[in-house]
């Protein structure tokens, strides 16, 4: 009987010891997951614990479940669970960083870039800090904060990893192009980088985009205006539009014909001609002015399309690298 009692006391002390050890790990913010005594096991219908689990163990179990939600593409559920977990005081800094990272990633995936930036910025020191910085930079690019995107990358030290260094240079090159800073782009292009499957095709694309930007020559707004003054709509055709010139033609030429007819029949001083002539004049001048502006609009469209392609080519390798 006394033997059993002793055994019982020993078992109790062992359990208390396990708890104390786990608590100590919580309080000392031990970053290594594998150091935790994992006394959690799952049976057929419920999760039970052999000993009273620590908060960290429970949070770890919960986090594992959240990873399952993410891998199952149940993003709404995962975000809800992550936010619930985040409201709890997470003692382990690694886990806190992971929670922030995944909240950021889901928000990024849902295109809530401001929310994603807040979460990625909260990542402090764990293994996900590099991925967070890259995603943070992408999010800043998406909200047109290019200086902040550049700042995030410049403060990121990945010199020990050639692939990530390559990725960082690609991102910086992309940002330079988005800023139209060709000096910075050229200095980054001059850096020798290792070939990497993560960035190779996008690096080539950046070179193409840079060449396209450099070779682009805006059409003359004067010529566009002059052409439209001669034949309504022709200036827009010259600017590069192929559909809208005909729309301008269909409106302006018939109006001109009607005004001309009223001039011939009713005379220059007639009210009819004055009204129709004024109407035609408004359309005619508007068309000429529109052709002048169309040159700038076409230029803007050209750069917007390139910017869109650059942003896409900056996203892809980051997702490839941190899949």
């Amino acid at each position, binding site marked *: 009987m006394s033997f059993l009692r002793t055994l019982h006391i020993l078992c109790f002390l062992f359990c208390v010891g396990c708890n104390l050890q786990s608590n100590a790990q919580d309080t000392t913010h031990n970053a290594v997951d594998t150091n935790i005594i994992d006394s959690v096991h799952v049976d057929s219908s419920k999760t039970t614990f052999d000993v009273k689990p620590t*908060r960290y163990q429970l*949070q770890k179990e*919960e986090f594992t479940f959240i990873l399952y939600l993410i891998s199952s593409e149940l993003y*709404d559920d995962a975000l809800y669970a992550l936010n*619930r*977990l985040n409201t709890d*005081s997470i003692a382990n800094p690694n886990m806190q960083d992971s929670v922030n990272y995944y909240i950021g990633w889901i928000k990024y995936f849902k295109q809530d870039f401001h929310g994603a930036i807040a979460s990625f910025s909260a990542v402090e020191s764990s293994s996900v800090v590099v991925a967070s910085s890259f995603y943070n930079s992408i999010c800043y690019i998406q909200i047109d904060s290019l200086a902040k995107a550049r700042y995030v990358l410049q403060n990121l030290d990945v010199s020990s990893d050639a692939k990530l260094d390559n990725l960082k240079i690609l991102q910086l090159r992309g940002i330079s192009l988005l800023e139209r800073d060709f000096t910075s782009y050229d200095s980054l292009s001059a850096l020798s980088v290792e070939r990497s499957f993560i960035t190779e095709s996008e690096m080539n694309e950046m070179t193409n985009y840079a060449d396209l930007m450099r070779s682009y020559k805006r059409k003359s707004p004067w010529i566009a205006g002059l052409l439209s003054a001669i034949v309504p709509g022709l200036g827009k055709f010259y600017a590069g539009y192929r559909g809208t010139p005909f729309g301008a033609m269909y409106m302006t030429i*018939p109006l001109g014909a*009607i005004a001309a007819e*009223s001039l011939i029949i009713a005379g220059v001083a007639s009210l009819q001609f004055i009204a129709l002539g004024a109407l035609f004049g408004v359309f005619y001048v508007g068309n000429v002015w529109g052709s002048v502006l169309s040159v700038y609009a076409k230029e803007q469209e050209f750069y917007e399309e390139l910017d869109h392609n650059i942003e896409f080519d900056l996203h892809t390798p980051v997702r490839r690298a941190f899949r």
Partner: protein
Amino acid sequence: MICILPFAGLSASPTELVFFRSADSLRAAGSIEDAIIAYEYEAYTATNNITRTIALVQKADCLLEKGRIEQSESTLSRLNYFGLSDSLQYEARYKSALYSYLNKNFEESIAQFKMIQQFLPIEYSINSKPLYALALNETREWTEAKEQLHTWGKYHFSEDTAVMNDFNDRINETYQVKNHPKLKDLDKAQVWAQLLPGTGQLYSGYFFDAAFTSIMVLSGIGIAAYGVLVAKYYVTGILLGYGVFQQFYIGGQKRSEYLANKRNYQRKRAYNDQLKGMIINFTKNKKGPVND
């Protein structure tokens, strides 16, 4: 149903683990969002398909409660029916069909009903037939819907011949081919609109629309004729007249097609709503048909 989920109320000390709640109790307490996650957790930790199925069905119910019908449907699309009892399989498949129906995914709903017919005994599949008929109505398979209702009626009203005959008569009468909505031919509406502006709309039953189009097209011709023949403003007359004519002639063709579509939808909706009312009345009172 036991599920311990490390979520609700978890705070500073492990001694507060008592706050761990089961999915069912979360749901009963009105914490539906928490219950949704808790049921998913239950499915995640389940080591057999039965527990997993029950959890996912409950999760789908919670999602429906929150008005997330699409997610309800997608949750049930994750079910694996292997190894389930007939009753559980029926419940899962029926809810899957119902949520697809509510999500207006009628083809998927019908597919699920066909599975019920194929894999489950008649005692189960018979009760799904009214909803099956409703889904078939939506895809305009009225003849098949009628057959399904006859089978259902035969099962429920067989003890009383008079009631069954009455039921069959009502079904036959309502589902008569001559009662099926006469749907407008979109091509025909467009051809009519091309031949004689306004008749396309008239074909679909929109008289004022037809009259307006006709008047505007005639006005275009009138402006041209007046300009050329009376006012001697040839260019103005032709250009203005052609402008008005062309806008309403081309626009009338597109509008004819749109109105034919609208009319088809209205007729189908009205007929299906009538059928829906009748079917719901029958199912409410299985002893016999009631007046609509």
